[in-house]
């Protein structure tokens, strides 16, 4: 007779762990009909460009797709602008690359109650049946744009930097009943590591 949520968690085990992820973030986008070329050149760099709504993880890189013919690439931080410049050059006349390393904040959320907490603002169904591992989506939470992706180590959340603090504050207050702890920063490589939720 009781809802799953009402089965209260012992307070000591945090329901949610939050870590920042330091990464270079580049968005690449294809001109009309040129997406296959981008896929090829990314493939040549060891990165599979996923289909819409999916995230693909390579050893220390990651690509996700929430807009048609556009991919967000996450890579370990390099010299400012270098990653973007590299991709801009690589794209050639097939598309363009834009540096968003400073435009988006990347967090990893892990823990048994991440989905419950996010259901307090996220209008998407994050049930693993519906949004399984490897899924990615752009949506709005607490009036702020977010991109969510399900990785082996937890949930990757990208959000514009100017409102990141707001979202963080909102999350801390919402997640309080579940227990929220901050963890040390993770790397892009660390995102793909399997730290079961």
């Amino acid at each position, binding site marked *: 007779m009781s809802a799953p949520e009402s089965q209260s968690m012992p307070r000591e085990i945090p329901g949610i762990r939050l870590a920042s992820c330091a990464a270079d973030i580049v968005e690449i986008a294809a001109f009309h009909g040129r997406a296959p070329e981008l896929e090829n050149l990314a493939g040549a760099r060891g990165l599979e460009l996923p289909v*819409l709504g999916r995230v693909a993880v390579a050893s220390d890189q990651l690509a996700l797709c929430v807009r048609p013919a556009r991919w967000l690439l996450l890579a370990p931080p390099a010299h400012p602008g270098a990653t973007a410049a590299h991709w801009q050059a690589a794209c050639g006349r097939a598309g363009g690359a834009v540096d968003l390393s400073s435009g988006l904040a990347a967090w990893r959320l892990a823990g048994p109650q991440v989905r419950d907490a996010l259901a307090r603002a996220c*209008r998407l169904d994050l049930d693993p049946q519906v949004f399984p591992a490897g899924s990615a989506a752009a949506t709005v939470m607490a009036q702020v744009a977010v991109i969510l992706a399900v990785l082996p180590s937890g949930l990757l959340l990208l959000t514009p930097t100017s409102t990141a603090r707001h979202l963080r504050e909102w999350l801390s207050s919402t997640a309080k009943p579940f227990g929220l702890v901050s963890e040390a920063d993770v790397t892009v490589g660390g995102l793909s590591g399997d730290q079961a939720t």
Partner: protein
Amino acid sequence: MLRIPCPWCGERDETEFRYRGDASKVRPAADAGLAAFTAYVYERDNRCGWHLEWWLHVGGCRKLLKVVRHTLSHELHAVGGPEDQLSPPPGLTR
């Protein structure tokens, strides 16, 4: 509340979209003249019935969607991209 099935993102709440009005209006050619532009900008069929309209998915893929929606029942008949030719259900134009 409308739930709009974005062809790119799946079904989403109306709050993720920005409405951009009547999509049956086609921008006239540059030299079409004052009357044509006046009609384009100001005149609206404003149907009570099936309505072809624009929605920009600002909270998702940022794609512009063309939607056929019933303005009374809010039923959605079709959703597509700007290049798609969408029409109301047969026989039910009003």
